[in-house]
């Protein structure tokens, strides 16, 4: 069943998503986003630059936040905005736990057949909040709405 706006209400919590921060994840996502800065794949150079290890790049944080929300909404959820604030780095060996909550549901005049949903998200790791932010997406309106 595709998600529809009639089943959503403000305060609804998204299922938690736990993402193990592996070296494979950090390196493969950095390369997939064409980000070849050494701090994202070479721990020796990362340490020389004052970091304790390699760490996740920002494009990946964006990608994972987007994935978290569409994992929940299903394919009919269409992303409109991803706004993130960055905090503690994601280092290998840590785990980032993504949580989210529906912050608003706007059905507008209904002519588009889609409602705009805002979700507040948080990704916390062992150091604190790696990311906080909001994602806006559209979802189909329910048959009865």
């Amino acid at each position, binding site marked *: 069943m595709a998600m529809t706006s009639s089943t959503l209400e403000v305060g609804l919590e998204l299922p938690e998503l736990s993402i193990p921060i592996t070296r494979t*994840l950090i390196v493969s996502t950095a*390369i997939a986003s064409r980000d*070849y800065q050494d701090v994202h794949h070479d721990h020796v150079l990362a340490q020389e630059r004052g970091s304790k290890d390699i760490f996740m790049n920002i494009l990946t944080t964006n990608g994972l936040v987007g994935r978290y929300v569409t994992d929940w909404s299903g394919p*009919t959820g*269409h992303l409109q905005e*991803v*706004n*993130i604030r960055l905090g503690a780095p994601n280092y290998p060996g840590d785990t980032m736990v993504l949580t989210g909550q529906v912050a608003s549901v706007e059905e507008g005049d209904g002519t588009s057949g889609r409602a705009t949903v805002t979700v507040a998200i948080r990704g916390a790791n062992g150091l604190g909040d790696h990311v906080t932010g909001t994602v806006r997406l559209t979802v189909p309106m329910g048959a009865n709405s």
Partner: protein
Amino acid sequence: MPTEFPDHSDALAKLVGEPSGPVELSPEAVNSAMIRHWVEAMGDRNPVYLDREAARAAGYRDVIAPQTMLQAWIMKGLRHTLDLEAARAAGTVASNDANSTMMALFDDEGRTSVVATNCDQSYVRPLYLGDRLLVRSSIEAISDPKQTGLGHGRFATSLMEFFAVSNEVAERGVSAEELVSQAELVGTMRFRILKFRPGTGATAVVAKPPRPRPAITEDNAFYFEGLRAGELRIQHCTDCGTLRHPPLPGCGTCTSLNWDYVVSEGKGELYSMVVNHYPQVPAFDYPLPIGLIELDEGTRLVANLEGDPESWAIGQRATAEIRALDDELSLPFFHHDDTQED
């Protein structure tokens, strides 16, 4: 003494609104190979990025690129990164665009460290296979200097506007600037960084500044000298015997200018109190309870109260402890007098 840095506010203000650099054309059109790398690395199993039927069923006209890939399409890749590193190592980075100018001005202000703080992406329409992206970047805002948790810094916000043209149009050989005029806006991204002075953040300023110094006069010097000697001295009129505090030249009771002092036992009861919340001065801990203590010898004294402000009540017994705050300044702090409880 901290090093003095120049303030480039005027030069920085002129950069706001300027293009960060030239318009860039993405090296490749939106393609399924890059999409596949992305979704596999991200662990994203949404089928709309690779499966046409699934994309149509989900309400798209065709397969789309993951929206969050927006910036990935214009990343310049490994060769560019290596060339840039080699140029840096050789000291031959020659760039005079507004972004490089801004970064150089920040560095000159001593703000050599950088951290990304925000990234806001907004999607006007999905990207489809064959879309060729152009990006136009500009400096949208530069903040005044601010004290942040990381250090003393400035925030700079870049606005990146993403446009799409078909691959055919992109290959007609016209300049990227000219292509933008015929292209469709497909998304925007605001990217905010903080450039800050290393070592000036919250962790660097844990050493508290000293308490403000009292103004020492001929009349009150005995009081502060006494505290340094471990005595709580109270002014005493040698004509009528009245005690007075704070120190004054003359007696309020008999007007005599003759005085000496007595040493108080430092015991009394809480006559009144306030809790200072604002304004906060870094030398003090807050909330800051301040008591008016009625000393057993018979005069009142304003002094620090120890412990939780909520634990104090008017009339409670209090005992002074004289504490050296630094080499120059000692002050009385009153705590609950446990021996007098019940």
